[in-house]
């Protein structure tokens, strides 16, 4: 299959290793991977801030960027949810509605793509560490993915998966919410990050790099001995 990578803007700039790991896993499974460099941001910050006219422009742009792509795969439940759930809502009743629906049908979150579309759970990864998994809310509740990433992690050689308390609790990122209401966002990450740290795992793994920014940022500030890691980075590890 020819996979077009959808790399979140902040992954591009701040955690490029996540994008590279995603490509590595897909290539290892024998797929052709392309990156269309005209892509930038999906428009979610504006969408969530109520600036739907601005977000609509970003959506229409993205339709053009990914036109003709066989499948679009992104290593972020949140950005994929934007494209899959919210582009159709934004573009409903416009001349772009049909194309938005079409793109939505071709767009997948990374773990979802592996398990549901490709039917793969064992990607040949090795990672002899204790990890706990954080469900990003968009993956969990907009895309309804819960078992898929866990199936992938359980198939990783040497990996021990530990579930945490507050398993389905939000980390408090919420995009600009984390900076507009920092006191609430911080209280939320204290609850979530505390529960993750108590598992005694070496890494907190998630399919959402934005949650990892929040959780990792707090864990680092608090000096907790648990590191954030994207699921693609775990699955890319085969040595």
């Amino acid at each position, binding site marked *: 299959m020819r996979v077009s990578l959808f*790399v979140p*803007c902040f*992954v*591009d*700039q*701040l*955690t*490029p*290793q996540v*994008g*590279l790991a995603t*490509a590595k896993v897909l290539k290892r499974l024998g797929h052709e991977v392309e*990156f269309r*460099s*005209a*892509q*930038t*941001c999906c*428009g979610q*910050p*504006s*969408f*969530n*801030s*109520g*600036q*739907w006219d*601005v977000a609509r*422009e*970003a959506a229409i*742009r993205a339709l053009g960027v990914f036109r003709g792509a066989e499948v679009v795969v992104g290593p972020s439940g949140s950005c994929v949810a934007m494209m899959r759930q919210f582009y159709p809502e934004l573009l409903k009743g416009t001349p772009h509605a049909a194309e938005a629906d079409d793109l939505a049908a071709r767009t997948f979150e990374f773990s979802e793509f592996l398990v549901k579309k490709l039917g793969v759970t064992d990607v040949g990864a090795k990672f002899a560490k204790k990890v706990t998994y954080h469900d990003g*809310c968009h993956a*969990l*509740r*907009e895309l309804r993915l819960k078992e898929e990433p866990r199936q992938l992690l359980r198939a990783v050689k040497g990996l021990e998966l530990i579930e945490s308390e507050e398993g*389905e609790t*939000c980390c*408090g990122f*919420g995009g600009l*919410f*984390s*900076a*507009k*209401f*920092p*006191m*609430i*966002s*911080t*209280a*939320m*990450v204290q*609850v979530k990050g505390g529960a993750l740290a108590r598992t005694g795992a070496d890494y907190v793994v998630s399919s959402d790099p934005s949650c990892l*920014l*929040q959780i*990792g*940022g*707090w864990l*680092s*500030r608090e000096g907790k001995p648990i590191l954030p890691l994207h699921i693609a980075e775990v699955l890319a590890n085969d040595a």
Partner: protein
Amino acid sequence: MSDSKAIFLKDATVNAADGDQRAFIRKALGGYYVNRDLQKARYRDWERARDAASLAKWSAVNDLANVLEKFVTNFERNGGVVHWARDAAEARAIILKIAEDNKAKAIVKSKCMTSEEIHLNDALEKAGYGVVESDLGEFIQQLRGEAPYHFVFPCMHVKREAISELFTKHLGTAPTDSPEELTMIARRHLRQLYVDADIGITGANFLVAETGQISITENEGNARLTAALPRIHIALSGIEKVVNHLDDLSVLLPMLATAGAGQPMTCYNTLYSGPRKKGECDGPEQFHIVLLDNARTRLLADPEQRDALHCIRCGACLNVCPIFKNIGGLAYGTTYQGPIGSVITPHLRGLKQWNHLSGASSLCGACTDACPVRIDLHHHLLHNRRNAAKESPTLFDQVFHHGFNFVIKRPWLFATGGRIFRATLPLLQKLPLPYMGAWMKTRDLPKAPAQSFRDQWKNQNV
């Protein structure tokens, strides 16, 4: 910034930093999760039950005028008196007039959030009536002079010792830390008040159109005494509480109890069918219902968010909300707290003043999943944000988002801007910039990589 927003930000900041209180609330809700899941498991299919409950409310809300008319006809046939109130002021005036006409002195109330919405106690007390809340939680909040913290568990934030102190202060009872004893103190105090009261005011959980009955759900039995002992019963209800059929309650009553409190059924579910009839030995002489609009029709006129009128006020969305759990119910400054409050308050009391509640959400969606009647709560927060941005755009948001959009429309500018951003990140982190400064106060950012993904990709794939 609206006053309500300024107060919210101040209270939320204080409460979010109060680790002890936050832990107390989490602990108070800990048992709820266990019990709710236990009870949900007793349903053959909880998701289908949600469909059924949602449909029951949908069919009434989407035919509200007709269903209400049917309710009114049947309520009057049962001997009740119907009053329509367009807003809070009208509702208060109606209730005051009933009290005045009947030369009432003492009034007892059972739990009724709609009465909080119209600030009824204030109005009654100002007019010289004695008003007592008979629900234990509401009674405690009344003594504390504080609004309900959670619209189902009004005093969930109050520790037992504080309740004991409160009773000692106001009722002169000996200190105790036994919950049973505290309940008995309130009970002994309240019993005589039911007997002395001229008027009992209740809310209504459901208005059954086909029978003209009102359904009230409670755990303490106080609503039954409030409705049955005084010579006048006034029920105050929002117009959206109506359902078509008695049968609808077969799904709505258990779901209300399970979703809201983790109970199989609430202890007392009573249908009230009118005043005392000839030959009956008890019941009130008069039975009034005040049907309140108070901007509910404004919500009804919005097809996108109309489903918010499905709400059965179970409180499930509060119980699961990480915002509620971390800032507490009082910070909202609204009658209805939590996600449902953040959705409907802008409609009831003005978007400009109350949109900040829709903004104060990570949009995690736990509320929407918990809602027994499938209100699309967290997406409605997005809808409120969109409507607010249209109605009263802020200059900062306009500049920020249009500026951002200018950049992301131009991949070369995005890449260049990104390069500059990464190079200056160590410096930027130290500046009191909007957004980033707030982030950096409690969280680190990852070390900026030398090369972006797009640069590394280009180098690898030449």
